[in-house]
């Protein structure tokens, strides 16, 4: 007699869940004080202005309250004294994989990064805990004047561009976690694309947390000059630990007149990671900033990518997919600040909650009274898999003035047992049927991704669904 073996929930088959033992040459120890910051500044050889910027960030971090009142009490579970703020084996990223130490290299090989780089990327930066282990750009792209380096190298080698924008899109005191990042940041990318250069293939960064009780605080600054175009992709993973891990990045984008930036994230954090990230872009005249953001995994994600439309005719877009698995909370959304006439913003958010997972959409659209010809479109759709799954929507839309248009649609749907039965009748297991329906729900958004990432996303959804049915 043929019987079906149900998928075993305890077996985590996700690609990211593995870990090799490491010796760290540089370790700031546990907890955060001024001395921790000095240690980081010393190790990194920061210029004085950066050290001062860090200390300022630290002060603001201490001042700012935890946003538990509007977000979630779970933030109180982060014990800042127990976190390790800086861990690295060396501070200089290598230009070839051969030079990368073996114990780090095997991690990225297992994640398939060198292979992806060969196949379809213009350049890659691979960060392991606090520092990039590898950073390289294809020669042809470099010859066009494109700069793609780690943030430490960026601030030292290109201060004239770096200083002009660093901390300007997102001031260190924007929120408690941007302040924390400002105090202890390490790693992340610095990118500059000269006027008119259209980078053909994406640049990619991969962020890997390897250590337990660790905080990863990368800082990315991307400036795309007039009429230039760039697609940047980031991926992230961490192995599963018993204790909480913190990921708190700050990403600033600047699109000069007529420039286009597309920033794609596919994160797959393990379920112990607090992922508290601040992302914002400035779009100057006729420029376009588009965030494509896929949040899978983590214990709590709080992330609201934003676009400040500063110049006439600027466009901002956020396309986001969030999957809240059992016990997880995805608190995500978008911020659209219209600051010039004829600016257009578009927000499309789809969330999936399964088991006791909870997804929250939090939006902010601001069009002040004196502007005209501004448009916003907001769509948020939630899919609930189980009866105890949860979704909330908080769209804060303040649109004033004549001749500005706003459109908002929201929906909540469920996969019915009749749909599952129908699919099972065609031979699909319950888990496969669920996966297919969930993939169908996000299909129109996934179409916008580069092929390799849509395949990756599908695989991640399948893994999540497989673990949740049974």
């Amino acid at each position, binding site marked *: *007699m*043929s*019987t*079906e073996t149900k998928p075993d929930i305890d077996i985590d088959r996700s690609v990211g869940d593995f870990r090799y033992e490491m010796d760290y040459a540089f370790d700031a120890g546990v907890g955060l004080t001024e001395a921790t910051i000095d240690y980081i500044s010393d190790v990194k050889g920061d210029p004085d202005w950066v050290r001062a910027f860090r200390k300022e960030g630290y002060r603001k971090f201490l001042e700012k309250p935890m946003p538990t009142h509007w977000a979630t009490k779970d933030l109180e579970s982060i014990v800042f004294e127990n976190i390790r703020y800086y861990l690295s084996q060396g501070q200089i990223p290598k230009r070839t994989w051969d030079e990368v130490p073996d114990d780090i290299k095997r991690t990225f090989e297992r994640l398939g990064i060198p292979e992806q780089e060969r196949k379809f990327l213009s350049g890659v930066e691979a960060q392991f805990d606090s520092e990039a282990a590898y950073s390289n750009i294809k020669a042809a792209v470099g010859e066009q004047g494109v700069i793609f380096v780690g943030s430490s190298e960026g601030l030292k080698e290109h201060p004239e561009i770096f200083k002009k924008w660093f901390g300007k899109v997102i001031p260190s005191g924007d929120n408690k976690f941007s302040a924390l990042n400002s105090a202890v940041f390490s790693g992340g990318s610095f990118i500059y694309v000269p006027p008119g250069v259209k980078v053909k293939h994406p640049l990619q960064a991969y962020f890997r947390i390897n250590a337990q009780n660790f905080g990863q605080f990368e800082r990315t600054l991307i400036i795309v000059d007039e009429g230039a175009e760039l697609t940047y992709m980031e991926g992230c993973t961490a192995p599963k630990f018993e204790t909480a891990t913190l990921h708190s990045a700050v990403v600033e984008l600047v699109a000069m007149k007529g420039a286009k930036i597309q920033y794609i994230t596919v994160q797959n954090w393990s379920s112990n990671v607090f992922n508290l990230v601040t992302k914002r872009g400035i779009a100057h005249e006729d420029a376009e900033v588009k965030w494509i953001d896929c949040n899978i995994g983590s214990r709590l994600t709080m992330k609201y990518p934003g676009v400040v439309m500063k110049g006439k005719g600027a466009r901002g877009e956020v396309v986001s997919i969030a999957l809240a698995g059992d016990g997880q909370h995805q608190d995500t959304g978008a911020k659209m600040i219209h600051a010039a006439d004829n600016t257009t913003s578009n927000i499309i958010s789809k969330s999936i909650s399964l088991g006791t997972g909870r997804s929250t959409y939090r939006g902010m659209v601001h069009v002040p009274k004196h502007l005209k010809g501004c448009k916003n479109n907001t769509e948020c759709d939630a899919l609930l898999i189980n009866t105890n799954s949860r979704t909330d929507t908080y769209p804060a839309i303040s649109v004033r003035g004549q001749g500005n248009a706003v459109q908002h649609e929201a929906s909540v749907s469920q996969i*019915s*047992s*009749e*749909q599952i*039965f*129908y*699919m*099972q*009748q*065609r*031979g*699909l*297991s*319950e888990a*496969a*049927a669920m996966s*297919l*329906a969930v*993939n*169908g*729900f*996000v*299909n*129109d958004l996934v179409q916008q991704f580069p092929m390799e990432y849509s395949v990756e996303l599908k695989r991640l959804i399948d893994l999540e669904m497989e673990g949740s049915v049974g």
Partner: protein
Amino acid sequence: MSAHSSSSLSIRDLHASIGDKPILKGLTLDIPKGEVHAIMGKNGAGKSTLAKIMAGHPDYTVTSGDVLLDGESILGLEPDVRARLGLFLAFQYPMEIPGVTIANFIRAALQARLPEGEELEATDYYAKLYAKMDALSVPRNFTSRSVNEGFSGGEKKRCEILQMAMLEPSYAVLDETDSGLDIDALKIVSAGVNALRGPNIGMLVITHYQRLLDYIVPDKVHVMSEGRIIHSGDKDLALKLEAQGYDWVEKEFGESGTKAA
């Protein structure tokens, strides 16, 4: 009664209920491979319920009796396992699956039948899919439409038969596949079904209309009433039912009739 052949879909004294409401009350039916049987019966007689119970719908409880596929009971099996064993149900009301294209759906269903690690060959798959679509006059651009979403009633039914043609089941239950079809579509779908007829498939066709049976000529016709098969005959029985309705069969063979006998 003849001995049950092991090459058959065989329903034995099946009793089933939803909640505590009994719907099937001792239904017995044997559909040998190579034959086409039809079930007719009034609204609410339990025809769709029978189809769904065979397919393993979780809402219904089988209280006694059995369903055997080629001699093996399938009652303890998940719906997808039954499907992969060769049982296909063309639904009376096919479900919509938003965002999942017909092409991906059928592909996933075929993939589910392959051993782990084996991949469906894409070019062969599309060649076959297009051929079957052409035969059923399903426009080729339907491959990229979401399953049943926004389909007309007739399109949904045609798409059910397309799936059946692609999955090549050994037993198929067609629940009112003819309702909602215009005359031309009825001919196309019937031709599609007839093309699948043969020694390797047994079919059970549920219908209200004798007209379908002009196109898909059944080997046997059964009348279902109040959860049982109360009378069986050849294709002429359908003609008689069409002309005279169900009252006479129910009087003669139904619950009250049986009791009186």
